[in-house]
């Protein structure tokens, strides 16, 4: 639909990445480039390796082969993301959300966001215990910034409610706000629309576009909901069985026979080469589920 707002600068440069768990190959020689300012969607059937890719990008998993170079914010020198701890990668400017929501349920919405904001602050325990001026200033700043973020995701009115008491869609948005709190250059959204209703999905699409356009944050998106993906993504990457099978604009992907084969199990030659019958039924049900969601 829309043209990639890319500047040509590479945020994530993934080359020949292979990730294995024992004999299971989760990612197989994946090559991927993500450009600054774009919304890149990673799609693929269940078990295609999407979340494994996310975890490799954020330092949770260490791929056995290949390189991942990261330059999250404009002007950063690319550094290798492999072997770095999750919180280090976060400090390099990568924030993420989780497929099953992982908030801090006993903290309020505001506090959840503050936790994110405050990882960029400096005051230590002694300053906190003594209530030094700098700590007070940081506390005030973090509250203001957290409120601003809550407002931008439409949760300002629920700031003082516990995260666990928020509705499902609200929790999804709160997770995004918390991720934005760390002031990222790239945000990785893992199925942000899962379990939300159509109205919430529309809001979410608007939110993703707003984050991308107004904050200049590059977005890497995993999503099953094709309507949402096609409406927000500038570019798509399709994974299947740990391999990249296609890459391109939404229009190109929709016409790509390999993708159609992977999703629909059509009886083209490539399709029969790529997938066995058992998997085809699985993908079919998967697709049903997706449509059911919409």
């Amino acid at each position, binding site marked *: 639909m829309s043209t990639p707002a890319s500047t040509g600068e590479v945020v994530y440069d993934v080359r020949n990445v292979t990730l294995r768990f024992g004999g299971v190959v989760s990612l197989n020689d994946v090559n991927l480039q993500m450009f600054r300012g774009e919304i890149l969607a990673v799609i693929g059937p269940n078990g295609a390796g999407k979340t494994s890719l996310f975890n490799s990008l954020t330092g*949770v998993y260490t791929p056995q082969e290949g390189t991942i170079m990261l330059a999250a914010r404009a002007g950063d020198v690319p550094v290798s993301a492999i072997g770095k701890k*999750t919180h280090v990668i*976060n400090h390099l400017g990568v924030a993420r959300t*989780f497929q099953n929501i*992982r908030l801090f349920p006993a*903290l309020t919405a505001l506090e959840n966001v503050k936790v994110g904001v405050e990882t960029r602050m400096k005051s230590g325990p002694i300053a906190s215990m003594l209530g030094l001026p700098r700590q007070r200033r940081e506390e005030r700043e973090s509250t203001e910034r957290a409120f601003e973020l809550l407002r931008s995701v439409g949760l300002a*009115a629920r*700031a003082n409610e*516990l995260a*666990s008491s928020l509705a499902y869609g609200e929790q999804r948005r709160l997770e995004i706000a918390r991720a934005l709190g760390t002031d990222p250059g790239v945000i990785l959204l893992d199925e942000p629309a899962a379990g939300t209703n159509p109205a919430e999905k529309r809001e979410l699409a608007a939110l993703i576009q707003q984050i991308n356009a107004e904050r200049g944050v590059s977005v890497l998106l995993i999503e099953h909901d094709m309507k949402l993906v096609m409406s927000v993504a500038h570019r798509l990457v399709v994974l299947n069985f740990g391999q990249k099978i296609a890459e391109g604009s939404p229009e190109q992907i929709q016409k790509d026979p390999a993708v159609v084969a992977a999703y629909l199990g059509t009886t083209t030659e490539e399709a029969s080469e790529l997938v066995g019958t058992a998997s085809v039924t699985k993908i079919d049900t998967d697709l049903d589920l997706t449509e059911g969601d919409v």
Partner: protein
Amino acid sequence: MSTYTDVTKGGGQSRRSDAAEARIALAKRFAGCMFLAFVLALMIGTQEGTQDDFGYAFRKSVFAPRIGIFALIGVAVFLAVTFWPRIVPYLSRAGVRPLAAGALTVVVSFTLLNWTDSTDLNNGKFGGLRPAAAQTGGIDPVARLFFGSAFSLTPWLLLLIVVALVAAAIRFEDSSTLGYVGGGLAIVFGIWAQYAQSAVRSFLDYPDHSTGAGVALLGFVTIGVSGIVVARSHGKADSGGFFQRVYDWRPGMPLVALGAVVGLVGLFSAAWFSPTDRNAGIGLTSTMFHGTGLSGFSAAYLAWLAYVLFFATLILAGAASYLRHHLLGWVAAGLGVVSLLVTLYVMHDFSGLAAQSKFDGATGAWDNLGTGGWMLCGALTVLAGAGYLVARHEQVEVPDAAPGVSSDAALAAGSKLGPALLVVIIASALFFPPTATQFWQTVLVTEIGIYVLLAIGLNVVVGWAGLLDLGFIAFYAIGSYTTAYLTGRLPVKPPSFLELTPLAAIPFAIVICLVAGVLLGAPTLRLRGDYLAIVTLGFGEIIRVVANNSTPVTNGSRGAFNIPPPEIHIGPLDIKWGDNVLGYWYLLLVFVVIVVLLFNRLEHSRLGRAWAAIREDEVAAQATGINTVRVKLLAFAIGASTSGVAGVYFASQIGSFTPENFILNNSILVVAYVVFGGMGSLPGAMAGAAVLTWLPEFLRDQVPAEDRQMWIGAVILLMMIFRPAGLIPARRRRAELGGLDKKDSSETTAVPAGEGM
């Protein structure tokens, strides 16, 4: 379930089986209750047989008239459980909860508490005092009547009458007269109890620290208040608790009432001067010191100024609370503080004079004081606090979800009773210990206070950061040994410039414990849950075993001794703690207050939230950019240094210790205190430690020594069943437990849990 389906299908057959099942259930319940009574009968009584008669204890418990009492208890429990559904609707009525609390308080004072610190009677409790008082001639007949001259059930009858009256008022909603009569009678009976006890006390003539009569008075007054509430509310539901409502209506009013009761008892009933052979009330004290060279001001105070100051403060605080007048509140608070200082000055003055003239072996000021002066001090503190609360009331309120307001403030606004409770706690922490017996003062200083400090420290590690640390006592040991080293009481002497007094050792102990905490934490904090617990347990044992075996350095199993008591010499300040236990209590209080203030800030700071985050979801915390290892290390180090401070205090207070003071059992006890009180809650951890260190000492007088642990176990079990989140649950932790319930109803399961990462 099957009965329900049967019923829907209809038919006489199923209905009959329904009734039969109900009968069987009732029978089962009855059998259960009787069994409970039987077990209770075995628990309370002789526990062991003799060498040639193993069934002795059993027969003593079972084949005796007393089994009848326990059977009655069983029947009562059975009836209560059976009719519980019918009782439930009444529980939400106004006045029910204070009635229950008041009745329970009176029962406790009649059964468990001391009414005299008697040495003549074998038992200073109510049950022991009553026959003695009834037989002794010369006691005021009104007082004697209370103890039951004709008929020994009198005090219990009094309680029964008022409870029945108020309960009837609750049951028959229209009758407010019953409520007023019951409430009024209850207050009269309370005063009667107090009067009777003071009559007996002056007759028995020895120093008195007993709390029984005072507690009975408080219980009766609570019943009285509940009666009046019932009369005024005409059976309306009591949402949000009685005290909460009064507090919402007039903040400060509950405090004023409490201050009035305590102050009146202090002025009119309690002894002000108690050398070994008398209990002089304020009037008698005034007469005794007449013409002894007591300064005119103090003489005037004892003669009339005390009354003037107290009533002026009381009236001002009451008016300020009723009118919600800020300025009056400030005036009341100010007058309260001034009166408090004056009272302290006068107490110092006359007790100092008595000591100077070597009256009855007093060694210095503050000796031989009765409870009255301290009670008045406590009352004045409470009244001043009430005034202060009224003066500050508007600032306390925080509108919900107001943008820009820190969420912690909003959370804090949730419990408005907090400040009032805080005032009561401050007043009792300051002025209750001097009224306690030597035994309880020692317990307070060597058990309760120290473990409260330790629990505060461990709460950081276990409660806030969620790391189970079973070797916490090791840091306490390190603090103690550091003190012993720096005061030169170990075989290895410090360089001469480092030889310090115990208090100056605190910074060193803190630093050493910080380092030890980091050294232990750095390699082990990768471990989670049980594994971490095992490693810390090992660390605790290592420290103890090393201390036990490196005789050239630590003096081995003989430990360190002759550690000097703490002292302060800064400018004009020159304090040396000696044998007086009470002094250590105030020193400890200073430590606890400082630590609580600092940690309270910490809990609501960036680091506190980071701890909550890693406790709740470590993966998400990492992904949000929290360096989990660093944050955990900080928790470990901060907890450890608190423990180190406690160690310094312990070493210099106790004077000598051995490695046996730092056994694993103590670590586990501290964990139990924190869990019992409420993990992650600062007041909870403190309350847990206080209750569970107080309870064994309290039970000393109540149950056979070999049964004590069993009763404590029972209390902990009941607690974990009915309040699993602890005595005072942390707001965050409570939310966690609530949050889990809520999650089931939301759509979390839309995504398979395993795919989350």
